[in-house]
C-alpha cells in the first residue's frame, strides 16, 4: 500500500529558486552563519548547495544518514534525479553512467561498500568522468566492525582519483563544495573522493559556518569536458573505438601509458584550484618548531589538542594538516618541515599510508627523524595522551 504523497501541480522544485554562483564566491565571499550540526548534516547542506543533478544511494553504516538526507533533498527539489541502487558495483557504475551523460552526479559510501564498488571506482579516472564520492571511513572486514578506521583510503591512492580528507564537519561541507566544482574544470575532468572519519565526524555535532541556501553552485556544463560526454552530440573519445587499443600490441601499450600519464597529470593540475578554494592544501601551525606532527582527517583535531597542551608546558610543537591527499602537497610539506628534527604521523589505520606518503615526499629533502606512528585502528579513538607520550619518547630517542 503506497503512502507516498504526490506533488501538487503548483509544486516548484526548491532548487529552481536558488541562484547559481561559483564555488569561489560560495566558499570565500558569501557571509556565513554558524550552525551546530553533524557531519552527515554538513554533507546534506553541501549537497543542497552543490546543484547535483543525479544522486544514487545505497545504504551502509555509517554513510546511510547522508544519502537518505539526499533523498529528502530530492523530494524537496534540490536534486533532480535520485534512486536507491542495487548495491555498490551497481551504484558506482550508474553514477559514472550519469556523469558520462554530462550531468553532475554524487554518491556516498563507507569501507566495505567502497571495496565492493572498487572495480567501477578505479575505472572512473581513466574514463574521465567527474562524479563526487563522499566516503565516511569505516573498518574493512574481517572481523566485522562498523567503526571508523580510514584504511580504505589507501586503496584509492593510486587510482587517479582526487582525494580530500576532511578533519571535521566544517571541512566536510567546504571540501564537498570545492570538489563538485574542481572535478569539472576542463584541465581536470576527474572524479573526487571526499573522505571523513565515520562516527567521530559523521554522527557527532560540531560548529559549521555555512552560506545561505538561496545559493547553489553553477550547473555542470556538459559540453565542457576533456573527454566529450557520451551523448551522441559530439564525436566520442576514441578509446573505446579503435580496435588496436583493445588488443595487446604496441599501440595499445602506448595508448594506455600516455592516457594514464595524462590522468595523473590532471590530478596535479587540480592543485591550483584547491589552493584557492581551500586556502592552501596544507595548514601549518608553529612553523618555527623543531618537532612536527603531520596528519589528516580527525587525527588533526587530536594533534591540535596535543600541541596546545605542549604549548602550555612551554614546548612548541608544529602541525601540518594535509587537506588534499591527491594531489599530495609534497612541496608544501617539504617547505613546512625544512627545519624540523622530529616528525610524528598519527593515523587512524594499521597500514600507516600517510606515513608512507610523507616518507616518500621527504626522502632526501629533510633531515628530520620521521617516526612510524602513533596509530590506532579498528575504530579506536586516539587519546591526546598517546600523541604526548610518543612526542616524549621521540624526544628521548632522537635528541
Amino acid at each position, binding site marked *: 500500500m503506497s503512502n507516498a504523497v504526490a506533488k501538487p501541480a503548483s509544486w516548484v522544485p526548491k532548487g529552481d529558486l536558488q541562484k547559481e554562483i561559483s564555488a569561489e564566491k560560495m566558499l570565500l565571499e558569501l557571509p556565513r552563519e554558524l550552525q551546530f550540526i553533524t557531519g552527515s548534516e554538513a554533507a546534506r547542506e553541501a549537497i543542497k548547495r552543490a546543484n547535483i543533478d543525479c544522486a544514487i544511494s545505497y545504504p551502509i553504516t555509517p554513510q546511510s544518514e547522508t544519502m537518505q538526507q539526499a533523498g529528502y533533498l530530492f523530494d524537496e527539489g534540490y536534486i533532480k534525479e535520485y534512486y536507491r541502487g*542495487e548495491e555498490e*558495483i551497481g551504484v558506482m557504475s550508474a553514477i559514472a553512467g*550519469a556523469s558520462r551523460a554530462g550531468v553532475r552526479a554524487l554518491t556516498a559510501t563507507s569501507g566495505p561498500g567502497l571495496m565492493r564498488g572498487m572495480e567501477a571506482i578505479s575505472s572512473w579516472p581513466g574514463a574521465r568522468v567527474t562524479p563526487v564520492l563522499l566516503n565516511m571511513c569505516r573498518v574493512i572486514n574481517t572481523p566485522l566492525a562498523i567503526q571508523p578506521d580510514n584504511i580504505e583510503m589507501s586503496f584509492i591512492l593510486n587510482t587517479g582519483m582526487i582525494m580530500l580528507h576532511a578533519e571535521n564537519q566544517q571541512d566536510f561541507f567546504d571540501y564537498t563544495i570545492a570538489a563538485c566544482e574542481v572535478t569539472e574544470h576542463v584541465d581536470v575532468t576527474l572524479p573526487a573522493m571526499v573522505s571523513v572519519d565515520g562516527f567521530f565526524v559523521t554522527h557527532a555535532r560540531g560548529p559549521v559556518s555555512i552560506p545561505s541556501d538561496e545559493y547553489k553552485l553553477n550547473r555542470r556544463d556538459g559540453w565542457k569536458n576533456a573527454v566529450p560526454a557520451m*551523448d*551522441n552530440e*559530439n564525436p*566520442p573519445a576514441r578509446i*573505446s573505438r579503435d580496435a588496436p587499443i583493445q588488443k595487446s600490441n604496441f599501440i595499445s601499450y602506448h595508448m594506455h601509458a600516455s592516457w594514464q600519464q595524462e590522468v595523473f597529470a590532471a590530478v596535479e593540475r587540480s592543485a591550483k584550484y584547491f589552493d584557492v578554494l581551500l586556502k592552501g592544501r596544507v595548514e601549518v601551525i608553529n612553523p618555527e618548531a623543531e618537532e612536527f606532527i603531520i596528519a589528516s582527517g580527525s587525527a588533526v583535531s587530536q594533534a591540535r589538542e596535543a600541541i596546545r597542551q605542549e604549548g602550555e608546558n612551554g614546548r612548541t610543537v608544529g602541525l601540518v594538516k594535509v587537506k588534499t591527499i591527491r594531489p599530495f602537497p609534497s612541496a608544501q610539506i617539504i617547505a613546512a618541515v625544512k627545519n624540523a628534527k622530529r616528525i610524528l604521523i598519527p593515523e587512524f589505520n594499521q597500514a600507516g599510508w600517510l606515513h608512507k606518503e610523507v616518507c616518500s615526499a621527504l626522502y632526501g629533502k629533510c633531515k628530520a627523524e620521521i617516526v612510524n606512528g602513533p596509530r590506532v585502528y579498528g575504530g579506536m579513538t586516539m587519546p591526546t595522551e598517546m600523541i604526548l607520550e610518543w612526542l616524549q619518547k621521540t624526544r628521548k630517542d632522537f635528541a
Partner: protein
Amino acid sequence: MSLDTVRPSPGFLEHLPIEYQDLVNHGQYGKQYKASDMGKFKELVEEHPMCAGCAMTLFIRLVFIGLPRPEHTVIVGTAGCGRLAISQGNVPFIYGNYGDTNSTASGLKRGLELRFPNQKKDVITMCGDGGLVDIGFQGLMHSWFRNEKFTTIMLDNEVYGNTGGQESGMTMKGKVLKMAPRGKVDEKMDVVGLAKVAGVDYIARIAPTNPGRVLRTVRRAILIGREIGSTYIQAYTSCNIEYSIPTPEVMKDAFAIEKERYGFEEIISERAQKFLDEVEKKKK
C-alpha cells in the same frame, strides 16, 4: 542536432575519407532501410575483427541497420566478442567494466533525460550471455525491476567465446566446454522467464535466420524502450569456433537450433502493445 554534427561544413566533404563521405551521402541517418536494401547503402558497422562466419557479427550488423535513430543512440557493452564489432560502429559505444552494462545504462539514460528533456536518446546495452546473466546478473535484474527505459540485447553464443570457450550460465546442460570438463551440470538459465517475472515490457527470443524479422524486432524493442519501459532481446548468435561449426554451416546451425529450441517468441505487455499499435498504425 546530431544529424548536423554528422554533416561536414560546406567545402569540407571532399577532403574527408571516402568512408566518411559515404556515411554522409549514402548512410542510414534519417532513413530507414529494409534488410533487402543491404549492399545498397553505407552501413554503420562494416569493418570488424570478428572471426570468419561469425553469426554474432551478422546479428550485430542487423541491429545497427535496425536502429531507428542512430544519431541519438548510445550503446553500452562489456567484455566479450561482441564489443569488438560494436565498437567499430558509428554510434558512441561505452565499453565499461565487467558486467556493469545495465547499471551504467540506468545512470546514463536518466542523465541524458535530464540534459536533453526535448530530445529522446536511445540507450542500448548489447553484450554476451556471460556479461549479462553471470557477472552482470544483479545489474540486469534490478534494471528490469526498476523498469529502466532502455533496451537490453543479449548476444547468446552459449559460451565465453572471447576468453577461449568456457561454459556460461546460458550453455546447455551437458555440454562439454572448458570449465565444464564433465559437461555442464545445470540447465541453461531461463532469462526470458526472468524477464517475464520482472515485468519487462517487450521480450523477444530470436535467431538471426530472418533478417527482416530481426530489424522489426530491434525497432520494436527500441521504440518501446524509449517510451514505455525495459525491453529485452535474446538472440542466438552461435560461436562457430568453440562449437566447431564449419563456417559454411553457420546458418544451417541457426535454422536447426531455431527449430529445435530457439523459436521466435515475442512477449509484449498490454501497455507496450497499445503503444506499438499506435506507432505501427501511424506508419501505415
